[in-house]
């Protein structure tokens, strides 16, 4: 009776669609730039600036997993970045301590978001909208509108270093992504978190604490924002209070294009990363061909819609009833 399609299951996933689109886009761009895409400089720039969008997409994804949203991821990234730069420059802390502090700060603020959601039972959208404005104030408070520069040469060197041709920051982002993937796929906490997102009531009946899932998701989201902050500090060499302003919409775009349901219960690390990859491709295409920003926006809009439409059409084709008309009854176990 479980005659669900098995073998081509993987080809029907939205990850697969995205993968194909991303690959085709990459190849297309390589051809269009007559190979310039594959030059070391371009590749390095490509992956270096892919790291933060990937991590920030994951930061949003973990809250989407419980069917909530975190509007504060972007400014939190900026705040953590400013805080760690402040710690290095003004407080004179060594880089590694400042990095740990940024991560801890991110997780802490995320936890506060979670606590507010759990204790007030106010919609997370509104809670994080409020904390977003608070954090915006704090982010500005660190150093006004001015720029921090020259904090830790070692950290900045690391941010610009490469391993096997891949930028270190990108490698870190990939490791983080794998970690997040394993967390959701393999750990009890991750599974419980997803169960809470999928059907909170069913999860509760199975002894899962939805409140704990909410706390965990928000704390993890904050932690990932902290990771994004550290990556930013390392790769850019200078930070100011505007850091994070461009991250909110991409943080939603990546997981949602990547197939994560807004209703919760479903995550896709691969999809999120691939979607970030796609958006990055458009960035690069813009630089390669000198396209105006207006056209880029138009193209991104079209690409998003296109990917999603293809996904929808594929989904429809896949779910079309394909029951054999003649022998359905006898082949199914109906006892």
């Amino acid at each position, binding site marked *: 009776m479980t005659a669900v399609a098995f073998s081509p299951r993987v080809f029907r996933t939205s990850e697969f669609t995205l993968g194909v689109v991303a690959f085709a886009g990459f190849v297309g761009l390589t051809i269009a730039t007559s190979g310039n895409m594959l030059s070391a400089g371009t590749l390095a720039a490509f992956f270096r600036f892919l790291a933060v969008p990937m991590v920030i997409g994951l930061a949003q994804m973990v809250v989407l997993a419980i069917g909530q949203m975190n*509007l504060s991821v972007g400014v939190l990234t900026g705040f953590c970045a400013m805080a760690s730069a402040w710690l290095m420059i003004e407080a004179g802390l060594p880089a590694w301590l400042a990095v740990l502090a940024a991560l801890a700060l991110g997780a802490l603020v995320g936890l506060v978001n979670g606590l*507010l959601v759990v204790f*007030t*039972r*106010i*919609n997370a*959208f*509104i*809670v994080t*909208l*409020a*904390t*977003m*404005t*608070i*954090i*915006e*104030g*704090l982010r*500005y*408070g660190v150093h006004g509108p001015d720029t921090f520069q020259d904090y830790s040469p070692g950290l900045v060197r690391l941010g610009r270093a490469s391993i096997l041709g891949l930028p270190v920051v990108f490698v870190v982002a990939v490791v983080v992504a794998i970690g997040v993937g394993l967390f959701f796929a393999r750990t009890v906490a991750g599974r419980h978190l997803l169960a809470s997102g999928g059907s909170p009531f069913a999860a509760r009946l199975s002894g899962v604490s939805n409140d704990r899932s909410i706390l965990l998701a928000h704390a993890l989201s904050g932690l990932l924002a902290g990771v994004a902050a550290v990556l930013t500090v390392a790769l850019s060499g200078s930070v100011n209070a505007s850091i994070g302003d461009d991250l909110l*919409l991409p943080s*939603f*775009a990546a997981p*949602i*294009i990547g197939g994560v349901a*807004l209703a919760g219960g479903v995550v896709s690390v691969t999809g999120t990363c691939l979607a970030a990859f796609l958006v990055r491709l458009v960035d690069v295409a813009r630089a390669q061909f000198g396209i105006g*920003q*207006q*056209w*880029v*926006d*138009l193209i*991104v*809009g*079209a690409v*998003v*819609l296109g990917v*999603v*439409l293809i*996904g*929808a*059409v594929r989904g429809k084709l896949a779910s079309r009833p394909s029951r054999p008309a003649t022998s359905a009854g006898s082949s199914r176990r109906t006892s």
Partner: protein
Amino acid sequence: MTALLETPPEAPAARARSLPLWANPRLGLLVLLVVLVVLFTALRPSFLDVDFTLVPMQADISVYVVVGLAQLAVLSLGHMNMAVGRMAAMSAFAMGLAYQELGTPLVVDVLIGLAVGAGLGALAGLVISRTGVNSFVVTLALDFALVGLVSLLYAKATDGVSFGAQPGGMAALRTDTFADYCAGNVCGPPVPLIVPIAVVAALLVGLLFRWSRTGREILMTGASVKAAELSGIPVGRRVVQAHALSGLLSGLAGFLLAVNNGAFSAGIGDAFLLPSFLAPVLGGTLLVGGAVSVLGTFLGATITQVIYKGLNLLQFQVDQLKLYIGLVLIVALSLDRVRHVLAERRGARA
């Protein structure tokens, strides 16, 4: 058939008691509003200054109420419209272009613009209902596409980023209040001329969702698409209509902002997105669909503007201002929750 089934014993009257009046969330917001006004007036008496506080605040509230309603129109479905701002911009562009090219009077320009807004909304709705793709994604993509389009269009139609000439009447709408129109000694209240536009829009939207078949069917679609479809509701059409309404209201909000700012320009709608959610959600409209509160949206928009104005009068610097806006929001919402929980408890015990 009447005698086939006997009526079961009536539920005792005591069982059927609804929540007390003070548990009404809208009332909570109203109390909050009054408390905030009293607080700010105590701290800064100029909060009640007619020319510099009350009149401009009414004009701003009018804009944000309509912005909130634009989002509310699709929240009713459990959808989102991430393109409210850009629909407003396109709509305002159409109004400006209509006047520039056709020289038509204000009312006609506005109608043309609203039609453009409604059309864009309907387009989003059509894509959503036909493909079943999440509204967030569709409208986000539409937003991106329109951002580009708006600046391309302005670059083409104007020598810069706004229309130079305004249709007659815009200036009066911007600067005048009813107090400026007197019949003998009797002058109107100090209410800006655009306020009635927002009020009428709010009343119509309220009417739609409360008493009209279309509005109710939109809500039912929001409550459960499957059940709506199986109850004979034309689900697809209702989705398109709700999104068209959202586009129309975005356009109206764009017009009101253009009136306040004094020109149809490309920047209209840039700052609409967050307030569009804030007002209805503060007012008790859920993101899941099926229930909306127009009055709540009005109160939500008013409360946010009051907080903003009050903190402005207290002359906080950027960092403190942001901090306090967030804190006031959280505290206000938490108090509202406490009230709600208390009410539920009372209600349950009764």
